[in-house]
């Protein structure tokens, strides 16, 4: 269970949100909505522990994440605006290194299965910078199916994906929630029915 208590965040001396609290239970998909500049990315980064809030605390299963990060990070998968892949390495190298860092061991067959699922077969040896934006996004997303994390925090995951990709991701989200996983995501498009039931949280733009 992921809980945020009384979070306050300001960027460039502008308060984005104050005293914000929310709770997300396992088996829930939270759709974070709001206009540009409302603070969605900042909120997600605070929930992952990459940024610190001005005040307030984030709790995972009752424990403050700033005190104990390792337990939370074993269960967490985060995908932000940046893909987290190095352009001069191939998709295969990028994924292998990433898996090693996150201490996830996956048999080679599974790795290729996932690459096939995201439609990158034949492109796995090419340096990632030669792939299109959508393909690069798929490399980043493929990690979702390699690290079987309980908590998914995804910041605009549908960017650059084509219709098939969006459908595949939404289906995965529904399955993950069905298995008892927890998802927090933002998107500028509405989540379709393929994503299943979800709760909406609106962030307003504050002046």
């Amino acid at each position, binding site marked *: 269970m992921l809980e945020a208590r009384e979070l306050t965040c*300001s*960027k*460039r*001396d*502008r*308060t984005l949100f104050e005293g914000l609290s929310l709770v997300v239970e396992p088996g829930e998909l939270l759709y974070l909505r709001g206009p540009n500049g409302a603070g969605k990315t900042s909120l997600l980064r605070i929930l992952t522990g990459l940024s610190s809030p001005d005040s307030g605390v984030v709790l995972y299963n009752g424990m403050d994440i700033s005190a104990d990060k390792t337990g939370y990070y074993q269960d967490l998968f985060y995908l932000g605006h940046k893909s987290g892949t190095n352009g001069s390495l191939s998709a295969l190298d990028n994924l292998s290194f990433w898996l090693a860092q996150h201490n996830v061991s996956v048999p080679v067959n599974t790795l290729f299965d996932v690459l096939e699922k995201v439609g990158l077969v034949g492109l796995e040896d090419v340096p990632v910078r030669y792939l299109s934006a959508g393909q690069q996004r798929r490399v980043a997303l493929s990690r979702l199916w390699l690290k079987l994390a309980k908590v998914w925090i995804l910041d605009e995951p549908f960017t650059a994906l084509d219709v098939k990709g969006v459908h595949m991701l939404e289906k995965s989200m529904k399955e993950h929630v069905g298995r008892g996983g927890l998802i927090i995501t933002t998107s500028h498009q509405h989540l379709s029915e393929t994503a299943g039931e979800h709760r909406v949280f609106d962030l307003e733009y504050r*002046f």
Partner: protein
Amino acid sequence: MWKWLHPYAKTERAYQLCLTLQPWFWVGALACLSVGTVWGLAFAPQDYQQGDSFRIIYIHVPSAILSMGTYVAMAIAALVGMVWQWRTAYMSMIAMAPIGAVMTFIALFTGAAWGKPMWGAWWVWDARLTSELILLFLYMGVIALYGAFEDKQQAGKAAGVMALVGVVNIPIIHYSVEWWNTLHQGATISKFDNPSIAPEMLWPLLINLLGFAFFIGAVTTVRLRNEIVLREMHRPWVQALAMNKALNQQPGDAATASLKEGS
């Protein structure tokens, strides 16, 4: 033990503190500096070796001591900001930085001016002068780093790291430059060393030291006030303050009359 300091983590309290301290600092600075400078430059006895030109120490020594002192104070403010996450700590740090740099420049300028009658050159690579020059670079680095960030809270944290790296390096730099100096200049006794100083010379020096310290305090409180108002512009207490100022300044103005009506 430091509980009395905690209210000043809030910008409003810090602002009020600056307002209270400011007049005292200006009065203190004016009093001490006028007494000390006039005493030192006009009335203190002549040095038996250097004649009247040594009088520059009444400006040089206080500014040199305080240039180091201000850097250490900046580092302490940075540490407080880092450990307790106080915005006012980072704001104080950047409020102090330019005045510390100016002190360093004064020390360099007066040090060089002192060198001219002594050694016939406007600049010598004396150990102390070189250390002061490097200190000036450290100040400029901190100020430049702060200015490079758009988000001023982030800027404070980054500049704080550099201030701390600098403060750890200051003793190392000082001793290495001193050692370098002995390698290249032989055993000339530095004119900046005053092993024993007559009391008639010491008093104006101490008074000027206090005067410069008050001056730094005064300028810092002004800069800190400005920084607080700039960063907290959208807070209600700042807007109330601005409104009060506008209302009090021009009572006969039609615009302020309408403001009065509005409030």
